[in-house]
């Protein structure tokens, strides 16, 4: 391993290079651009033997990756925000076709108002597209996720495309010291992609066909099972990863001080670093606070959430998203997990960080303070008055 000073984007690009993709099709968009720029440099300098295809749009970027995957190639693409939305038509195509493409998405606000900064509305709006969705917390995890994503997506029991999300700017553009594994280690971890789901002259197959009302549900059910199977394969991948690289991850969620916590904040992405510090401060003051970070939203960690919060008095969900006319989408999913597990708990939803607005340490402390009052509400951080639920 070599230690390098890398941004989240660069770390992810290094991870992708280690995975030896055969085709990279991409279109640049802030704050994702650096990933594919870096990969194009790797292809240019000969350190990555891949076909780099600079397409004319994001719709084409994913279509091209689908084409590559349909001849059995390991395919990668990356995008963000409007680019992801432009790909929207192709997302369920890749998922339904069971093409295990890996895509990095730099989480960014969606227009209008036009805004290039980070929030999670882009990927959360595509939660139902049939893709695995992971959210990295730091640059090291981004690199490791890049490598693991191919293993998980391509596993024969999963065969599902994988969207790895990095918070725009906060994670994609900030620098950290990152352990970059050797190619030998990466090769020991990740086998080549083998599939029968491909066009093959020796064994001609009809790909991406129609299925009418009589058989359609079967295909959709199998697609559902594939993404559910990912839970187990994620554990397997992380176990294998720990053996080879010595870094251990904790599956669909990451708990911090939740075991005896009375008040738990559930969140995702890079903001969890700041929440961890807030938990430390509150613990030092004798308050019983905990953090549950959702590392994956699909498959959704229903049981992990129920286990982590079953002894809590109240919980809050902090997310950079709003499903207009209702509440934050992560909040909806979390409440569903509690309801299925028969857990009755006051829950609150905090909508923050929209369009890149900073979420402060004090705001996180305030969330915990408010949780002790155990009110159930949906609040927007950083705006007062009626909109704030007061």
């Amino acid at each position: 391993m070599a230690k390098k000073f890398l941004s989240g984007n660069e770390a992810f690009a290094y991870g992708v290079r280690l995975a030896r993709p055969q085709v990279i099709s991409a279109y640049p968009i802030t704050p994702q651009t650096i990933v594919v720029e870096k990969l194009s440099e790797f292809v240019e300098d000969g350190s990555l033997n891949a076909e780099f295809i600079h397409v004319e749009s994001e719709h084409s970027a994913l279509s091209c990756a689908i084409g590559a995957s349909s001849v059995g190639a390991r395919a990668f693409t990356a995008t963000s925000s409007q680019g992801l939305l432009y790909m929207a038509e192709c997302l369920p195509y890749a998922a339904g076709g069971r093409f295990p493409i890996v895509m990095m998405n730099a989480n960014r606000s969606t227009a209008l108002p036009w805004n290039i900064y980070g929030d999670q509305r882009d990927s959360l709006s595509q939660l139902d597209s049939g893709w695995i969705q992971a959210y990295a917390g730091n640059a090291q995890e981004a690199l490791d996720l890049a490598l693991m994503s191919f293993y998980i997506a391509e596993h024969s029991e999963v065969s599902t495309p994988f969207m790895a999300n990095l918070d725009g700017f906060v994670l994609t553009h900030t620098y950290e010291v990152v352990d970059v594994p050797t190619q030998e280690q990466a090769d020991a971890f990740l086998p080549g992609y083998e599939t029968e789901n491909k066009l093959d002259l020796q064994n001609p197959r009809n790909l991406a066909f129609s299925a009418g009302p009589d058989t359609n549900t079967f295909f959709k059910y199998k697609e559902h099972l594939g993404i559910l199977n990912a839970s187990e394969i994620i554990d397997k991948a992380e176990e294998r990863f720990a053996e080879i690289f010595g870094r251990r991850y904790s599956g669909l969620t990451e708990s911090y001080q939740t075991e005896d916590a009375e008040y738990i904040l559930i969140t995702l992405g890079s903001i969890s670093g700041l929440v961890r510090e807030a938990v430390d401060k509150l613990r030092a003051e004798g308050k019983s606070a905990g953090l549950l970070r959702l590392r994956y939203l699909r498959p959704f960690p229903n049981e992990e959430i129920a286990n982590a919060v079953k002894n809590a008095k109240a919980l809050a969900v902090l997310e950079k998203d709003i499903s207009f006319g209702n509440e934050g989408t992560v909040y909806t999913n979390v409440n569903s997990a509690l309801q299925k597990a028969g857990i009755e708990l006051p829950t609150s939803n905090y909508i923050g960080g929209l369009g890149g607005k900073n979420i402060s340490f004090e705001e996180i402390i305030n969330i915990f303070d408010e949780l002790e009052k155990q009110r159930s509400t949906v609040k927007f951080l950083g705006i007062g008055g009626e909109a704030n639920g007061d």
Partner: protein
Amino acid sequence: MKPFLRDFIPTSYEDIPDATAFEAGYLVTKNAGWRNIRPVIDNTKCVGCLNCYLYCPDGVIFREGSKINIDYDFCKGCGICSKICKPGAIKMEAEK
């Protein structure tokens, strides 16, 4: 070889492939229900140029021995073959 209708029709979970991928040329349902005129080939006028085969958007025209035939399970009745046929060997007839 053109794809054709087979006997095996998947009806259960076990019959369904894991991905939308299956042995090539395997058609499981007819698709011609909206045709209201059908092309009929007069093989005495046909010169076997196969222009109709080249122009057919659905690939339903095929050679059977020395004769040209149409797979009515999949012909949509668009009439392009009739228009393109120089010897006038293909006439469109109303479906009854």
